[in-house]
């Protein structure tokens, strides 16, 4: 594989991890979040600050990063208990703008210059770069998918599904909305933090604009295009939405127009996502697994 392909593949794996986290909040617990890039950024900045200011290695800093981004997720997930639907969508947009402004204007976070000089990850004395780091990211992606799979099978996940479908009825059955919504928020944001830490150590330079509102949009688009609430949907979405701009690179000036038009057509004609209930790919896979019979 050429270095170019490895770079794209690594970024796809990182975005897939973050999108999986968003899928837990949006797809499993049914809480719309348009500010997921904020948590991605919080993970990245925490990892970068640990690495550059305290000199802790990636592996020692990682648990702290996960705990901190989970705790911030807990704190910022609190509004979701008070407001719902459209209010929550706008609140999370607001959180994204506020977090980005804090990174950009508070000198402690490097201001407009961002944070540079983040060291590479080492494993067993080996410095991971190129293909090695790609496998590390893939490993973490598999781990995240395992957590997602376990989440859909365990009691907490079932409780979240019930809350998503009908909050009043679920609460009537004794499922605490507070507890399980916050659980989904903490799991989802910790996953975004993991993605952020990997991103910081891969890019080795981060700035506030890497985590701005458009990034949240593309993360949500990944989940929606792939199929909300499905296990593989976010991975497929990350693959499609990260690979397409690269495939359309020859179009240069018309690239953004092309990808946004594609997103529009997707949401217009396949709003459930490719792997969702009525999705195009899902019906194809189902037909194929039945031996081509309809």
């Amino acid at each position, binding site marked *: 594989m050429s270095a170019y392909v490895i770079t794209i593949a690594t970024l796809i794996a990182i975005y897939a991890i973050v999108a999986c986290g968003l899928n837990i909040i*949006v797809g499993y617990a049914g809480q*719309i979040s*348009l500010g997921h890039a904020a948590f991605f950024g919080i993970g990245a900045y925490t990892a970068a600050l640990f690495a550059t200011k305290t000199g802790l290695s990636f592996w020692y800093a990682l648990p702290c990063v996960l705990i901190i981004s989970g705790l911030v997720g807990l704190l910022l997930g609190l*509004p979701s208990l*008070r*407001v719902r*639907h*459209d*209010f929550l*969508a*706008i*609140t999370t*947009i*607001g*959180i994204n*703008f*506020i977090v*980005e*402004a*804090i990174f*950009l*204007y*508070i000198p402690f976070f490097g201001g407009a210059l961002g944070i540079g000089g983040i060291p590479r990850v080492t494993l067993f004395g080996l410095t991971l770069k190129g293909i090695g780091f790609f496998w590390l990211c893939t490993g973490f992606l598999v781990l995240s998918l395992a957590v997602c799979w376990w989440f859909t099978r365990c009691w907490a996940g079932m409780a979240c599904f019930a809350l998503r479908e009908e909050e009043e009825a679920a609460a009537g059955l004794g499922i605490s909305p507070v507890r399980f919504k916050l659980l989904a928020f903490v799991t989802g944001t910790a996953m975004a933090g993991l993605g952020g830490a990997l991103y910081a150590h891969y890019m080795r330079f981060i700035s506030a604009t890497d985590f701005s*509102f458009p990034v949240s*949009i593309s993360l*949500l*688009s990944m989940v*929606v295009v792939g199929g909300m609430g499905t296990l593989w949907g976010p991975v497929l979405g990350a693959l499609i939405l990260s690979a397409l701009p690269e495939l359309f690179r020859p179009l240069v*000036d*018309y690239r*953004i*127009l092309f990808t*946004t*038009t594609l*997103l*529009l057509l997707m*949401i*217009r004609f396949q*709003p459930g996502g490719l792997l969702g209930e009525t999705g195009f790919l899902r019906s194809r896979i189902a037909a194929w697994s039945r031996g081509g019979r309809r």
Partner: protein
Amino acid sequence: MHLFIEQLLNGLAMGAIYALVTLGLALVYGILRILHVAHAAVYTVGAYAGLYLYGAFDSLLLAALGSMVFCAALGVAIERFVYFPLLKYPPYVPLIGSIAVMLAIEELCRLIAGPYILTFSAPLPFPDIHFGSITISATLTAVYCVTAAVLVLLWYITSRTELGLAMRAASQDMPMADAVGINSHFVITVTFVIGSAIAAVAGMLVGIYYNQVYPTMGTVPAYKTLAIIVVGGLGSVPGAVIAALLLGVAETLLIGYAQIPLPRDALAFIAMIGVLMWRSEGLMGSK
């Protein structure tokens, strides 16, 4: 003191502009329960259309009328081809569709008109006004007068005409409105026509006020107007206007007098989250 008054006047103008852009959003939310982010793109198109028509006809009135017609058509097209087919899905689906429309229109503006800042220098047909040492520039007067005229006209349409009655009925309960013989899809179309025409006026006003028209001029209003309609109470038009004026004045005064390290756009969202935590239905909303 006179600096304070000038700041206040500028803040009011800022708030009036926010109010104009927010009106369309509040109207659309009131009737369809859709967060019409692409409204800000309609506003950008309005500014460009106004600029080109002004260059072609050399008349502000003709430019404004043409731009309003063009934007109304654009708004109705967005409603017909994007929102209406998506109404049966959960609200995040039309929201993402709206954001995609907004980005696509912004890109089209950039590709057609170029990425640079164009100037919109139109001499206004009335002079600056002086009160002692305080000067109210012609553009400031234009912003006040146009906003006041639009607000009065909108108030008249929604509360004194049969069309307004149909709009209010459809926004309260659409199936019921259908049942009593209101053509609710027609009412939706009219709502988009009114909202988009106001956005066109707002776009031209902003273009003249700052003497700038550029492809991404809608980005900040797109999300800030969302904060405004939340603070005003989703779907409440008077609430949105009050929140817009308050925000314009508060922002300008805070930036002028308090040393706050955060930019004004972040302040708007902090204010919004504060209001939401205090009154989760907004200033003028109902539970």
